[in-house]
């Protein structure tokens, strides 16, 4: 009798112990996740959570021994009611709880707030400096050796009566480096039109070919030499990475350009181009933001634009106040990054991760 009472009491205490299992839509997201919470008696041996989909298919989403916890079930159907069952195993008994929740898609990703704020700060800074440049404020720009040399390279080609080779990288127009390269090409084309030096531009992609043709033609018109523009000097080789390189190598060996420019996005082929160019004795300038290829350009070219220098080039060459203003905006971003890192490191030393987590939210 006593034993029976005891068992009864234990049973009651289980019942009294707030065994809870809740599900709720994960807030501020794309409506594909549900947050599951459970809190069970500490005597729980094993917990299994199942998702019961419409066709009575049962998927086990979690298996754990933790008596309480939180789990996010993700990659779910949007705006849909989802049913869950929790099966808890105690020493001799099992308990089954059920709950439902509906996924909802919202209009803002809260975890990306840090990302948005920093992006807006950088953009506003850039726009602000562009505006103040428009109003006449002058900005200083430090020397970039690789760009000063452009004049020298064109001069050398003119002197020798040999062409200039310009390679706009091996990426398509979906890479900003290619677009930055086309901007540099426009300056170079203008100069070469003035000097009446031939400019050869082989392209890997048709889209780049189209844009490059426009850019060069425009530059020749601007320089007042539309007659000197040769459409056939800007051509397509092949979409293939190494096929393209083989073709350029052939051009370097046969046309013997006096100056080579490699600007844009480059991969493994960087050293093939630069070494072949070196062997032909051309004066070489390269520029890329592809960190892994920079060493090869640095060792084999006369001048190299490192990373951001590629993007600063158009401001540097044109001395256009708007471009210089934009560059000042980038510098503001750098200052912000440096301060963020230093503050972040100091906070980390004291064990505070608020700032890091706030910024990291976006990338998770």
């Amino acid at each position, binding site marked *: 009798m006593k034993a029976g009472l005891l068992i009864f009491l234990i049973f009651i205490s289980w019942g009294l112990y707030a065994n809870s299992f809740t599900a709720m839509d994960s807030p501020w997201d794309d409506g594909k996740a549900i947050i599951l919470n459970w809190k069970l008696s500490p005597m729980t041996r094993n917990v299994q959570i199942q998702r019961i989909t419409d066709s009575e298919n049962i998927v086990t989403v979690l298996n754990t021994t933790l008596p309480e916890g939180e789990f996010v079930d993700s990659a779910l159907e949007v705006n849909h009611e989802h049913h869950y069952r929790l099966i808890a195993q105690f020493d001799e008994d099992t308990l089954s709880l059920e709950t439902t929740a509906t996924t909802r898609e919202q209009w803002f990703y809260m975890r990306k707030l840090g990302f948005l704020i920093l992006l807006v700060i950088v953009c506003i800074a850039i726009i602000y400096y562009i505006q103040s440049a428009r109003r006449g404020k002058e900005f200083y720009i430090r020397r970039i050796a690789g760009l000063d040399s452009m004049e020298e390279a064109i001069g050398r080609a003119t002197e020798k009566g040999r062409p200039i080779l310009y390679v706009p990288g091996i990426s398509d127009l979906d890479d900003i480096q290619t677009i930055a390269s086309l901007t540099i090409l426009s300056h170079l084309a203008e100069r070469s039109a003035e000097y009446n030096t031939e400019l050869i531009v082989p392209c890997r992609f048709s889209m780049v070919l189209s844009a490059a043709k*426009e850019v060069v033609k425009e530059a020749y018109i601007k320089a007042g030499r539309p007659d000197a523009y040769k459409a056939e000097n800007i051509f397509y080789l*092949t979409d293939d*990475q190494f096929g393209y390189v083989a073709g350029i190598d052939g051009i370097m060996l046969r046309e013997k350009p006096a100056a080579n420019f490699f600007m844009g996005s480059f991969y493994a082929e960087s050293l093939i181009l*630069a070494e072949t160019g070196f062997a032909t004795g051309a004066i070489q300038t390269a520029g890329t933001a592809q960190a892994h290829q920079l060493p090869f350009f640095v060792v084999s070219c006369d001048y190299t634009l490192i*990373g951001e220098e590629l993007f600063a080039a158009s401001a540097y060459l044109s001395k256009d106040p708007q471009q210089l203003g934009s560059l000042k905006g980038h510098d503001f971003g750098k200052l912000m990054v440096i301060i963020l890192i230093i503050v972040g490191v100091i906070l980390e030393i004291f064990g505070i991760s608020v700032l890091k987590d706030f910024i990291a939210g976006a990338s998770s």
Partner: protein
Amino acid sequence: MKRSLPLILAFLVGFVVILSEFIPHRPFNQIVSTLEQWFMIISGFAILLGQISLIRMNTHKIVNKLPDWQYYLAGLISFALMLIFGILWGMQETPGLLGSGEGISSWLGAKPFDYLFTNAYMPLSATLFSLLAFFIASAAYRAFIIRGLESNLLMITAVIVIIGRTSIGTMLTGWLPESMQFWHFPILADFIMEYPNSAAQRAILISAGLGIVGSSLRIILGIERSYLGGEK
């Protein structure tokens, strides 16, 4: 009009793409993948422009008997061959206009397109890629010279990492006692890769990233527009 409408389009598209990053609600969360798919389709059409440029150029050289015209003829023939094979019998599992060409495949051991791919395209591509081994040697010979502090740093780290990556490193400093393990070549090379190298790579990524953000912003705002060319 011919100039401003494209600029407005670029602005609208760019702005919507950025907005959609922060809005999890439909239709915004599908915009980017849709645009990316469109990009693929548009450039799929555009590839013809390049190919036509290639054919025109080669024919021009052949017809006018410019120097080396025979090689351009060979190029044109191989282009046509590969294209015809691909269209007629397809590639790999994809059938072409004439199906999968079982007859010719059993004769060649593969579809004609794949046969050319394996026996011509692949070796050409792999061999061209492998030229890098030679160029890395000649570049090292010429450029890793003791000159100033900066070029010394370049050379010394290169040498340490080259030694550390092979069994040479293990042999050279394997005898070092436990307390001096840090100076063991493979460990030192790993240290350089993990810390100073990562630091510089990060600096390049961050500043170039800012350059890209700025350039993108200028494009969206229509300040950077050289890609559109002239007015006419």
